[in-house]
């Protein structure tokens, strides 16, 4: 029973650890890593779904009668491309965040933003008083 669904256990484990990394880590690169793990789990899920017991690769030949479903493979090829694009975009955003904030820690970025807001509000109050 446990081994029958081996792939699904792997999928669930990867999916949950990926999500956990995204939520729990403050480092922006680690978050992207988590996101990639999360997405990869879905790829494995689709691929395992396509497997037919005793089936071979889906090649058109006379001696092949039973073959795995090729459609999920094709779908997941698309999803992998999307995943790469997302990771690339995410990482390039991190590069620019590092340039702008000098940090890639969520806490520090949030702190800097709040500080800026406070300063702005303070300046504005002054302005209003003068007016």
């Amino acid at each position, binding site marked *: 029973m446990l081994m029958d669904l081996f792939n699904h256990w792997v999928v669930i484990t990867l999916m949950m650890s990926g999500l956990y990394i995204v939520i729990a880590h403050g480092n922006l690169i680690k*978050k992207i890593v988590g996101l990639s793990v999360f997405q990869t789990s*879905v790829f494995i899920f689709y691929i395992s*779904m396509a497997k037919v017991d005793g089936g071979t690769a889906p090649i058109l030949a006379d001696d092949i009668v039973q073959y795995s479903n090729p459609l*999920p493979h094709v779908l997941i090829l698309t999803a992998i491309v*999307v995943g790469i694009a997302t990771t690339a975009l*995410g990482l390039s955003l991190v590069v620019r965040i590092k340039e702008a904030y000098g940090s890639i820690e969520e806490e520090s970025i949030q702190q800097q933003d709040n500080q800026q807001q406070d300063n702005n509000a303070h300046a504005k109050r002054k302005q209003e008083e003068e007016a």
Partner: protein
Amino acid sequence: MIAHLPILQVIIPLMAAPICLMLKRAQLVWLFSLIASGLAFAISILLLQQVMTSGVISYELGGWQAPWGIEYRIDKLNAFLLLIVSGISTVVLFAAQTSIEKEIPKNKHVYFYILYLLSLTGMLGIVATGDAFNVFVFLEISSLSAYALIAMGKNRQALWASYQYLIMGTIGATFILIGIGLIYQMTGTLNMYDLSQRLPEVAQTRTVFAAFAFVIVGVCLKLAMFPLHLWLPNAYAYAPSIVTAFFAATATKVAVYLLIRFTFSVFGLSFSFTTVPLQTLFMALGLIGIFAASTSAIYQRNVKHLFAYSSIAQIGYMIVGFSLSTVTGLTATLLHLFNHALMKGAIFLALAAVIYRVGNIELNNLRGLGRQMPLTMAAIVIGGLSLIGVPLTVGFVSKWYLLMALIEQGWWPVAVLILLGSMLAVVYVWRIVEAAYFKAPLDNSSPVKEAPMSFLIPIWTLIIANIYFGIDTRLSVQVAEAAAQSLFGVSL
């Protein structure tokens, strides 16, 4: 040619995007994108006419037959959405050239239009397609370009907002992918119409329940339904103003469309609302969303933040209408989709004009603008009145239908709450009116001129539409009602 309209709708902006790269000169690219978007708009009008007279259009991509190949299926609901998305995109694009002049560095202008067109392609694709996996692909096309567009904002907060949106958006899209995988596993098909035929057989399995949960949570992340809305305010506030105007008017609408499509067509009404207690859940979340977001809107200093929160509240109204699962309720939701696109498009374009002239969009910067930029501020006020739901504006029409739908079902307390929620809108709109008309300008602020024509024309086009569709409701109500009825009749 006419037979190929459904695919042309999506492919024109898609093909126009790489061509932009070859044109190189920003002005030329702007004109070209405007034409591409205008063509998409013209096609959507033709499609809507065709659907209203002769019913559902089915287009088989590459000639592959429906359940095997990808099918584009245009019914009244998609045709209506296509019209909203391409129409707003064209009007907003009209003002884009002037607006990005001051907000985006010159060497990035061409890329801006390319991303804009790709985002438009994605949204039109999501709406046009009748294939569940195709939805995911187009969702990612529109989202990835959206992240890049938001990151183009002037301040560094834009980068952080874009990053947060990327994380949330990707989780949402992947959830939808998992859901689609699970229903494919159960039925062996990805075609939405085919799915709606096959799902009832296996509806009582845990796999289908899990699929439903994944899809709904994923879509709700995308549509920024309370409490999954946290990415939206910053993304809207720090994005370039044109991008905000475009997304506020279209992106969440497309997500609402997906929600309706999956619950009503794919999973079917009886599964979504009888087997799963979606009604109570969505009604409650919608109402909390209206109050929480409207209250937050009241306390915002940045006007873009203020209207971003107001957008979340307006989504609450759509969710309440949707949760009733009656024809009138759904009509109200669809009407509000259309009307909210008109209001928020006009308001955010007017804010873009203010940013163009003043440079900042804090409440204090609006002081005295009532006299200095009378036409722009008048547009914001009319848009605000429409948000509140004052008679003679479109906002009144959709609120009216929503109240009718609630009373029809005997939900009196909810109807009262909806009216109270509108009162909160009065408060935040009043804060803007007060700043613009009743406060003297700051001493050290230099006088500003009225916005240029390139802003005023699109803003007032939308404002006039706001008033026109508030008085002559035939077109919008007729289409929305027909779309709602078709969803309740034979599914899809």
